[in-house]
């Protein structure tokens, strides 16, 4: 009998309770136990950043956390930002600047940037570029993502 452990956590403001194996990665838990498919898995060794989510408000790799470790904590995924009809200003900036192509890495970038922009509401180009250094994008070459970050900062400070 495989031993199961209780997991009780809040994701995007909603409470969940499940029982899972200890080895289940948080990335797999969010996607397949909870059906939140926005968080993507690119490498499972913590480098690509596609799986980045907010853990108690901080951007971390969900592929390097076991689901059982998230018990009692608060998770936010890309689904908490906006909807197709009502985009978050950061998402709006991304589409206006063409900061995504295949879109697979994008949720990871967005979750890295949400707390970054809260702490740095007016980043320079260099600061914006450093902020996304921990996320790999194979499609865009990063330039338009950096533009989107600064555009989002401007949008968000105007309270749009």
């Amino acid at each position, binding site marked *: 009998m495989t031993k199961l452990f209780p997991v009780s956590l809040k994701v995007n403001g909603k409470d969940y309770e499940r029982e899972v194996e200890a080895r289940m990665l948080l990335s797999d838990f969010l996607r397949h136990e909870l059906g939140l498919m926005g968080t993507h898995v690119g490498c499972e060794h913590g480098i690509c950043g596609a799986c980045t989510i907010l853990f108690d408000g901080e951007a971390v790799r969900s592929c390097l*956390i076991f689901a059982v470790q998230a018990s009692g904590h608060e998770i936010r995924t890309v689904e908490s930002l906006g909807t197709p009809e009502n985009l978050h200003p950061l998402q709006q900036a991304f589409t206006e600047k063409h900061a995504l192509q295949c879109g697979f890495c994008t949720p990871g970038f967005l979750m890295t940037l949400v707390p970054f922009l809260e702490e740095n509401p007016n980043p320079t180009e260099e600061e914006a570029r450093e902020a996304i250094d921990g996320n790999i994008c194979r499609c865009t070459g990063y330039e338009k993502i950096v533009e989107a970050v600064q555009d989002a900062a401007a949008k968000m400070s105007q309270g749009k």
Partner: protein
Amino acid sequence: MKPVKFDYYAPTNVPEALETLAELGYDGKVLAGGQSLIAAMNFRMARPAALVDLNGVPELSYIKPNSDGGLAIGTMTRVSTVEHDPEVAKRFPLLLEVAKFIAHPQIRRRGTFGGAIAHADPAGQLPSIAVVMDANVLIRGKGKERWVKAPELIIGPFMTTIEPDEMLAEVVLSANPAHTGSNYMQVSRQSGGYAQAAVASVVTLDGEKVKTIRLVLMGIGEAPILSQKAIEILVGEIPTPDALKAVAEACATSEIDPATDIHATADYRRTLVRALVARSLTESIKRAKKGG
């Protein structure tokens, strides 16, 4: 890949943690930040039978001033917490300087100060920093505890003197005397990636002359290399550019035995060490003179 099955324990306090480790013995492994361990488990290269997760033990996270003006850092303190702590900034700017190079912020927010040292990855920065700062490390087990200096703690690649039923509990950093300057430098091919070579230095001056010097060469050998040549050449001497050059040369030619791999040849690594040692020492000395 997915990790193999393992048993999982989540103690909520230190005695419980030590009790569990004692019971599990060789089967048990501490799970601290997990940024190295879980990655290795996701390759099925690390296959612990049981994990003792310390993330639920809040009493292991702290940064406290100690009696000599230094700091005691609890093992589970996140690297990013250390990076942003004002008390750390005041006393040990070296930690702020090196933190920027440790992977990326997303990793630093989970990775722990003690965990990184206990992991003793030869490519990791914190084991080398612990050695260059001559950190004093508290190792605890059920009914036992001992203090070990970092250079004696780390004995090889991913190897420390921590027993299976023990855990690293605290890292104590002694205050730097006046006129001390420090520096960390590395050369890596890619931002946040492994360094082909790195150097950390802490220099204390007595007037014009060098009183103490700790120079660690990182990413070159199987464990951090504390340079003896630097001590031989510089202690009691004025650190002229020529003297620093001599140290750099000695380090590059006689204190390291670098490997050739897909990223760098042995000779290139020597060249890096030569460059980095001179630059790092120059920086540290400049900082020592400025105030330290």
